[in-house]
Every structure is written in structure tokens, then in C-alpha cells.
């Protein structure tokens, strides 16, 4: 990817982000809840209508929709995402605080996934249609079919409650409390990627250059490890970017089950308490991070794969 392409990608990103910000704002705007009232009810106070009116004014909720949107967007651009009603803190601080735990969880599960899926996928592909291949495929099927919210609870039951090996509540965010959430997230991903690796390796094994290498007398081992595997991992890079992105926005269930102090957990409670600024900030942030990750992945993919790097 050259400079122009990156610039145009960034421009597209900006357009998409404006769209997202608008949509987010619209969605929360249209939500039936009233944030002004929520501030009071959250604190256990029954507000009078004057109190609500006053609060609406201080929050700027009495202005027309587009003015509100404009103000908000303008503030966001300056790094001010407003304050959370629920936690009474700047949204930016809250998100920053939660970002790292979620990233940590995402990365941990990704690493776990890679550790298992690559060898399994290769073994399966090399032994195509042999018993071990069937076995691995079977396992992967179970892996993708277990709902992670069920798996998580079962893991808690076994490892925390029955065996007492790991903490029930992962709020500490230390290494021990990372294990189960990461495993829960990794199971389905590992299953999915094992299949991907298998397919990719099989496909590569059928490509012309393998025949070429054989015709030159190159050994099968060299063909597999030196050529086929690196090539089949290339498309995985892009997939990985997408998965990391969707993990960022999709860890909620697992984070909730394990009381893990991450973004997903925060988002769900923001929604439950109609904490709109927090929610809007969250959506924007996750989208930006998601897009940035994908951009980085695309650039690196373009860099790693010479076909992309050097072709016109």
C-alpha cells in the first residue's frame, strides 16, 4: 500500500466515523429513556419535574437535535466526550481505564488461539481425510457450537467453585484472573481458526508451485514448512485483524460472566443505566480502534505479502 492508498483509506475512515457518530447519536437520542431523569433515579432520588427540567438545561438536552449533535461531535474532536452520568467521571478517563484490560484479554485469547489453531490446522491438513483429520474437525465443531456464556459458567463451576483453583471474580485483572475469560473467548476462536488454517494449508498444498518444487526435487518437509505454511498464514493476518476488532466489541458476555473490568462490561452497564455519553463515547472509541487495527493489519499484510507490496 502506498501513501496515496493509505491517505484515501484514512479519508474513508473519517467518513465512516462521521456516519457512525451520527448513527450512535441518533440511536441514543431516539431511545425512550431520559438521561436527565436517570441521573436522579440512579442515585435513588425521585426528581420533580422542575429538577428534571433544570438538569436537561445543564446537560444541553433542551437544544434541537442537530445542535446537540454538533456540539457533541465538536467536543469529541477536542477529546472531550462528556461525563458519564452513571459514574460521574469524564468518559475519556473511564474508557482509558477499561481499554487496557480489554485489550489484554483480547490479546491473551488471540495468542492462546494461535498457539493451538496453527499446529492443529496443519496436522489436520497434512493428514487430510485420515482419522486424525476427522478427529480435529470434530473437535472444532464442538468448539464453534458451544455458546460461550454457557462454557464460561461451566468453567467457573468447575475451576473456581469446585476446584477453587482460580478466582470467581476477575476484577483484579491480574494474570490469574485473565486465564478463564481468555480461555472462554479462545475456545470458539481456536475452533474457527483451526478450520481456516486447515483450509488454507490444503489450498496451498494444491497450488502449482508445490508441483514445481516437487519437480525440482525439493523435499516435502521444506515444501510444507518453508513454503506452504508461511503462505497459508498470510490470509490469516487479515482475518486476525477482523477478529481482534470484533472481540473488542464482543467481549461483553464473557466480561460480565467473569466480572472482568473491561470495555464490554462497561458498555452493558452504560446501556442498562442509559448512560448516553458513556455509550456514545464507547461506540466511537471501539469503532476507531477497530478501524485502526484493521488499517494496521492491512498495511502490514500489504507489507508481508510481496504480491500486494510490489504490484502496481
Amino acid at each position: 500500500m502506498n501513501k496515496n492508498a493509505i491517505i484515501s483509506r484514512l479519508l474513508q475512515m473519517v467518513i465512516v466515523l462521521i456516519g457512525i457518530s451520527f448513527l450512535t447519536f441518533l440511536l441514543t437520542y431516539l431511545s425512550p429513556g431520559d438521561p436527565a431523569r436517570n441521573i436522579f433515579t440512579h442515585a435513588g432520588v425521585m426528581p420533580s419535574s422542575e429538577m428534571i427540567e433544570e438538569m436537561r438545561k445543564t446537560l444541553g438536552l433542551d437544544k434541537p437535535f442537530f445542535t446537540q449533535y454538533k456540539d457533541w461531535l465538536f467536543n469529541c474532536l477536542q477529546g472531550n466526550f462528556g461525563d458519564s452520568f452513571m459514574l460521574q467521571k469524564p468518559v475519556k478517563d473511564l474508557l482509558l481505564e477499561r481499554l487496557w484490560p480489554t485489550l489484554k484479554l483480547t490479546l491473551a485469547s488471540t495468542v492462546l488461539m494461535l498457539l493451538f489453531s496453527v499446529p492443529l490446522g496443519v496436522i489436520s491438513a497434512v493428514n487430510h481425510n485420515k482419522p486424525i483429520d476427522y478427529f480435529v474437525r470434530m473437535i472444532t465443531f464442538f468448539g464453534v457450537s458451544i455458546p460461550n456464556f454457557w462454557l464460561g459458567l461451566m468453567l467457573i463451576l468447575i475451576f473456581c467453585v469446585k476446584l477453587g483453583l482460580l478466582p470467581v471474580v476477575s476484577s483484579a485483572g491480574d494474570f490469574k484472573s485473565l486465564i478463564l475469560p481468555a480461555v472462554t473467548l479462545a475456545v470458539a476462536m481456536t475452533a474457527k481458526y483451526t478450520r481456516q488454517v486447515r483450509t488454507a494449508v490444503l489450498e496451498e498444498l494444491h497450488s502449482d508451485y508445490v508441483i514445481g518444487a516437487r519437480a525440482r526435487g525439493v523435499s516435502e518437509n521444506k515444501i510444507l514448512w518453508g513454503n506452504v505454511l508461511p503462505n497459508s498464514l498470510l490470509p490469516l493476518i487479515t482475518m486476525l485483524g477482523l477478529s481482534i476488532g470484533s472481540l473488542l466489541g464482543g467481549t461483553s458476555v464473557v466480561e460480565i460472566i467473569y466480572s472482568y473490568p473491561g470495555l464490554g462490561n462497561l458498555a452493558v452497564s452504560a446501556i442498562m443505566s442509559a448512560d448516553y455519553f458513556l455509550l456514545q463515547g464507547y461506540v466511537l472509541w471501539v469503532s476507531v480502534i477497530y478501524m485502526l487495527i484493521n488499517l494496521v493489519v492491512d498495511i502490514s499484510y500489504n507489507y508481508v505479502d510481496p504480491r500486494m507490496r510490489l504490484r502496481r
Partner: protein
Amino acid sequence: GGGDKKDAPKDGGKAAAKTLVFGCQMYADGGIDPSAQTNTAWNCSRFGVGQTLFRFDDNVKPVPQLAESATPSDGNKTWTFKLKKGIKFSNGTEMTATKVKEYLDWIREAGKKGSTRPQQFLDFEAVVTADDAAGTVTIKSKKAYPNMAASLADPSMVILDVKGSKDMKNGAIGTGPYMVKSFKNQVGYEMVANPHYWNGKVPYDQVKIMFMGDASAKANALRAGQIDLAENIMNVADLKALQGDKKFTVQIAPGTRCGFSWMNMKQGRPLANKALRQAVLKAIDYKTICKSNTIGGLYTPGPSVIPSSLGYGFDKLKNPYEYDPEGAKKILDEAGIKDTNGDGIRELNGQNIQLRYISYANRLLNDFSDAHTQYLKAVGIGVKSEYGSSDDQWSKLVAGDYDFNNNNWNSMIAGAPTVYMGNWYSKAEANYCGFKSDTYDKAYEELLTTMDTKRYAELMQTLQQTLIDEAAVLVDGYYNSCIIYNNDKVGSAHMYPLDYYWITDEIKPAGAK
């Protein structure tokens, strides 16, 4: 497992630091600034940091804590509090009358920004004067307070060292048995014993407060030994299992909260029909519900909106609507509310009854609503449930967009049910159900002004009985607070009806006297 092994030296002996690990729900953001939100004020009291001049005892009566006595004069408009001697804040500063005044002035000012609304408990205009020599604080107000000791027992009135607290949010300096050592967002607090504590030796050297998400997490963490003590496990199955487990003690206190469903009696609403309401009450077996595996132990059954334990004459109330499904059917039949089209649902004014039941996931409310629905169906009353967020429930309540609306409220704001009873006063904004009764209104207006406790009790009796007679409220039951501990770790703990007090000096390690 259990405790924190790293912090506790294994050699045992006297040198071993005693540590308590407490699992609780994180309310608000876990802050303890009483001026910020109601919940942060509560946290300050609950975590053993701040203490009030008076506090509520097992009967929800204010009893002296930091103050010795409270004396009213000038028609209850002026109150003089005499402070106990020798009380120090955890930083060693003495709690003088000036310090108390400082706090009371500060909270009313700082509270304007937050949602605590300290003016509910102490009027903004009230003038506080301190007499350090006499050790008294005098408060003069234009408004009469039936019992200002109760008002000042609200957690927002914890006495803190305003000038000494550098970080009010997570490091407020109070007079409680424990003081904050460190705070970790979303994770919890590390507390240590207050070296200057006024009420004897502090039982634990350290207290770790861990925030945990849902009810079963607390139960599981208790079993796994991750925590020693937990508050309010709102899950009967877990609670029962823990009760049955010799390793744990479950302490249940009848609380001040009442779970009840508003019945919308506004014009044009089906429940404006009194016969229908009466049938509803008769159709529901509230005793079985509160005894069931699902709810049992967490709620105490009762027909009135004031919890039976609070001593507002519960025993003298008469309930004409004990569970009697046949009776319910009879009432309906007699009122002409019959099922003529044979679909199992009765019609009112020619239309199938389809009552909208709004509820939300809090303190088992959804379970009550489900149960009510089941019982009502059995007598031919159709119900459609709409379960959403608390926000949703609330907006529908205010908009009058419901037939039943289930919630759980604290009946004892500032130690008295006055505010709470206003919910059915026809001129109150908080009357969301359109209830109107002259008897009720008259009694309530008198309740607001009387300073006579006996008269107050009589009026309360009238109010409660009126609501029952008019079949105005569908009461779920009275919510019980609880505290659960691991017997190997904790020797004693106590739960009060008002759950302002979790970590107190009454919690002692196992084996300690």
C-alpha cells in the same frame, strides 16, 4: 483458599495481621464522597469510614453514635446535639463541634452539585452554630423537624474531616473503624484499622473490599474462599444452600424496603374498577410466593405497604383479601366480569382483560411479576408482561403507561415513612397511580405536621388500613437484607434493617471475643 495468603504471614501467632475480605456490589463508581451521590454517601457509611451523629438500630430508631443526645426546642425548630468526648478522626484530628459544623455546612454546599440532596435531611437555610467548649452543636431551622436525630442519621450526614480529607472521592477521612489505604477502580478498597478509633480496639488490621458483579458471583466467591463476608445475596437458591452449609452463617434482617406493584387506577384503566382490584388481591397467594424456592427468605409476606417489622401497627391491620381464588372468581362474577367468549379470559366492558405488567430486574421483582401473572391467569385475568430496564419501568410509571408497575422502595427515608406515604396522597406529584381517598388525604395532611409520635402512629395505622381496604396496592412483600460469612474466618457480624451499615466494629474475626 480464603483471605489473602500473601498478606497474611503463615506463622500464625500474635503477629499475624488479621484481614477481612468482603465481597459486595459496586454501587455508583465505588466512591465514598457523601456529597456526590446517594450511593456514594451510603458507601462511605457502609465501608466503615464515616459515622453519623445518630444511627438507626434494629428497630429503625435513631440511637446515639458520635453524639450523646439530641434536644429539640422552639417547637422542634432548634436542635442541640451534644457530642461524645474524645472522638478523633482517623488522621488523629479531634472531632470538635467546629469540625461537625464545618462538615454540615460543607455537605449542604457541596451537595448542591451532586444528587445526594442533603437538604432533604437538613434544610439549606438552617443555621449551625458550634460550641467547642460545651461540645455542642446547635441547629436552627425555619422548618420543624419531628426528629432531627433521625434526619442526621442519614449516611449523607456522616461526619468527615472536611479540611483533612484531601481526596474526598476515594479517601475521605472519617471517624469509622477503618480508613482507606488504597483504592483501585472497579476492583475495590484496601482498608486498614483506624489507629485513633474511639470505640475500643478495631477487630481487623486490614479489610479488603472487593466489588463483584452479580449475586451468584458473591456466593461462588464465598464458597471458593475468595471472600470471607458478603452482603445481600439476592438469590434464594444460593442463599438456601449457604444457610444449609455449616461453614457459613447467614444473617437476615427484616428490612425497611417494601416491594409492591402500583395498580393504575386512573380513569379509563381497567384497574379503576375496584372489584377487579379486589379480585386481583384475592387471587394471589402472596404467602406461598414468599415461601417458594424462588423467593423464600428474601421477602416477608404482608398486605401493607409498610414492612411488618417497623412497628407501625402491622398486627392491628385487617386484611380482607387473604388468598381465596374461588372468592376472587365470585367477586368477578358478581361484578359482571365474566368470560363470555370461552377463551379463558374474562371480559371487562366487552373486552378481554389484558393488563400490562411493567417490571424490571431488581430484587426479584420480575419473579414476583411472573408469579402474579400465573395466579391471575388462573382466575381468568389476562396479563401481559413487559420487562425492561429500571429506566423503562420508571418512565412508564410516570407516564401512567401501565396497569401494574412493580418496584421496591425504601419506606424509611430519614427514618420515617412520611415521604413514602405521600405516594398515595392525591395532591402529591409522586402519586403515580391516580389513587384518591379523602380519608387518606386528610390523615396524610395531618401526618405531615404532627410532632406527636403517638398521633403519628395512629395516623399511619389509618393510612395503611385505607390502602388495604381500597385494594390500592399489590404488595410483594418486605425485602430482607442479609449478610453472609465464612465461619472459619468471621466470628460475628450483624445486619441492620437499614442497610447503611456493612463494615462495622461489630464484625470480629473467628475465635475473637
